[in-house]
């Protein structure tokens, strides 16, 4: 029964991986491969830009997760109450999910424009800043700006997951709580959150792996700049293969891809180990 699926997996995933893996020892530009021995591997361990990009990946992923999970959960709880206008808000919050990351990132480049840009104009009018901020060009601000865009683009998706999780909790349990005199905060922390645990485990797994693999918005917003400050692992690897201004370094990019996959694999395994408890909550 599983053989078609296994075959597809081998053809589309396993084979390409090993096909590419053979170029680890080559300088390969897509046409011609020049044997370089272990140079690519040695280079990977001394490549300061890559290791900085690893740190940036963690900064980005942690920043995104800290914001996106609570906000999407809060929105899901709010919308699940079926207050007037809930459906409209559900659509509004979900809309960014159906827009291409490249498109909304491009829109944000205009919002973040320094000179008379909409965001700076509003903040200056509210006397919150005295001079325009270079949101995408200032190393202090660039990662925060990128995280805001990522949260805006992704929260609708997680909100829908949470709504589906919330809908599986029986109304009778909430009615019992009300009869027992529990307030909203108690109900949320003692009933809603524990009962969401199984789906929370899946959502967190998806959110973590997605956050560590994100790079499309970054390519549009900053392409890793300024001075590599917003390069994450995959934006750096992408540039090694598809950079417009130099020949592709597919062999070296393969080494980095394997390292990146290992890093994400370790994090995912670590999360699954720590998250075992979430299965036992309910």
């Amino acid at each position, binding site marked *: 029964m599983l053989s078609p699926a296994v075959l597809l997996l081998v053809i589309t995933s396993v084979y390409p991986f090993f096909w590419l893996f053979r170029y680890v020892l080559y*300088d390969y530009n*897509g*046409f011609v491969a020049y044997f370089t021995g272990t140079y690519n591997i040695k280079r990977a361990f001394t490549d300061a830009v890559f290791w900085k990009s690893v740190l940036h990946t963690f900064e980005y992923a942690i920043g995104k997760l800290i914001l996106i999970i609570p906000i999407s959960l809060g929105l899901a709880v709010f919308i699940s109450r079926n207050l007037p206008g809930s459906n409209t808000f559900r659509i509004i919050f979900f809309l960014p999910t159906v827009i291409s990351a490249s498109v909304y990132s491009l829109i944000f*480049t205009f919002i973040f424009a320094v000179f008379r840009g909409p965001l700076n104009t509003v903040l200056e009018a509210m006397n919150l800043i005295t001079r325009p901020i270079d949101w995408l060009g200032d190393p202090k601000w660039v990662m925060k700006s990128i995280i805001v865009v990522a949260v805006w683009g992704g929260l609708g998706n997680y909100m829908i997951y949470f709504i589906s999780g919330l809908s599986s909790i029986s109304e009778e349990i909430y009615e019992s709580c009300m009869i027992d005199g529990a307030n909203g905060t108690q109900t949320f922390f003692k009933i809603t959150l524990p009962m969401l645990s199984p789906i929370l485990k899946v959502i967190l797994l998806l959110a973590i792996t997605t956050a560590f693999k994100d790079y499309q918005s970054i390519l549009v917003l900053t392409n890793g700049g300024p001075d*590599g400050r917003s390069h994450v692992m995959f934006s750096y690897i992408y540039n090694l293969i598809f950079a417009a201004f130099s020949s592709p370094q597919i062999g070296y990019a393969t080494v980095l891809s394997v390292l990146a996959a290992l890093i994400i694999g370790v994090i995912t395994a670590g999360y699954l180990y720590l998250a075992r408890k979430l299965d036992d909550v309910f």
Partner: protein
Amino acid sequence: MKKVLSILLIFLFATSMMFAGGAGESQAPKGKTVVEIWSNDRHDLEYLLAKVSEFNAKSDTIEIKHTTVVENYPNMLVMGFTSGNAPDLFYMNARGTGFDLKTFVDANMLTPYPDSLLDDPEFAKVTDARKNIVEGVNAINGVPYAIFNVRRSGTRMIYNVDLFKKAGITKFPTTLAGLVEAADKVTKVGNGQFYGIATCASAQFERWLEGIINKSGVYHYDFKKGVFNFDGYREGILLAQKFFSNGSMFPGSNTQGVDAMRAQFANGTFGIWGNASQEAGVFTDQFPIEDFEWAVAELPSLDGTVKGTVDSRPQKGLFMFSSSKNKDAAWEVVKYLNSEEVVKGYIEKGYALPLSTYMQKVVDMSGAGRLGDFAPVPYEGLYPSVPAVTVAGDNYAVSIWNAIVNGSDVDRLIADLNKRYNEALERDLKIGKVKRIVIPNFDPLNPNKEKVQFLDK
């Protein structure tokens, strides 16, 4: 309602799939040989399609199919070739972004131009074919794989005359130090309403600053010795750092796209913008400037004199894929698209400047708008391509630009670039990826005059 929506969605999807292949000509009538051409230029599409239609109407044997592929062009060419769907011919401008001629030639993807075509009287007259063969740009080991028929100018400085007047500047500066001073003056007068100078998110260093350094006789590759040498860039980088330290660089221009910055210039929010002759059309059609006077100046240099060549890129080179099954018909199409009639009309429409001596004489530039402001100057030309080495870390243009923006130590930067680039050169020579390019009597004012030597070590 749902059914109606579904039908509408299917219709939209089907329609979008129909257009997904780009703008192309319709299928050929039976009996005609189809020669397919890809181009990544949109601005001249209307003119070229009209000329293609004229050809197709006249020819009983050949039908040209012209397709525009804008996104990811070099990769699309590669994918087309490897999947057996490559066109017969493709347009590429000199040093086209992402296109490495040597890689294409080493992979046997291209067909060289035959002598019979290079020596064809009409073709030679219109293109100056033999004179415009540049190593690494349209030729490898002296064998040409394309011939360009027009050019765009080298980089020029386009400036807002009104802002210059407000700042009390009557003449455009001829030195980089003067440019720094002028930008500072305009910024001070602007008092936060307008600024001195700008760049944009792509090719920041190459956009105009590198041209200023090259005009001063400094290049990043020492052709006489066959090694990379960034020592001469020091003065230019130190001066350019002042654009940021004195606040005369338009805020945020470093991260905005080229069109966003063109729009800002057209709005009068900064005084100086650097780019080549394509801006003639940009500031008359795309972002027409009507509220102030603008002018075009030649690039300054480090000391005000001309000691080197500024890259001026020839355009509209037609390359032929080796996979073409209709080579004879394709060469006929190459001849037609390089005919005097087609090229003359192209130039007179204002799409580009003439390249050959003959075309410079016969074209009437009166209808080409502000393109005349970008007329060729003697020191503009093309350097031979330097060895395309695989460098660890950022390329030199990105590294230099980062140092300019951050104000970091220039001596350290130059030592790092010399080390990284020459290490990469030695390594790539050893594995046979590149050859050392040496021109013993290299003249920076005539970089293509002397014969190129290719050394294995």
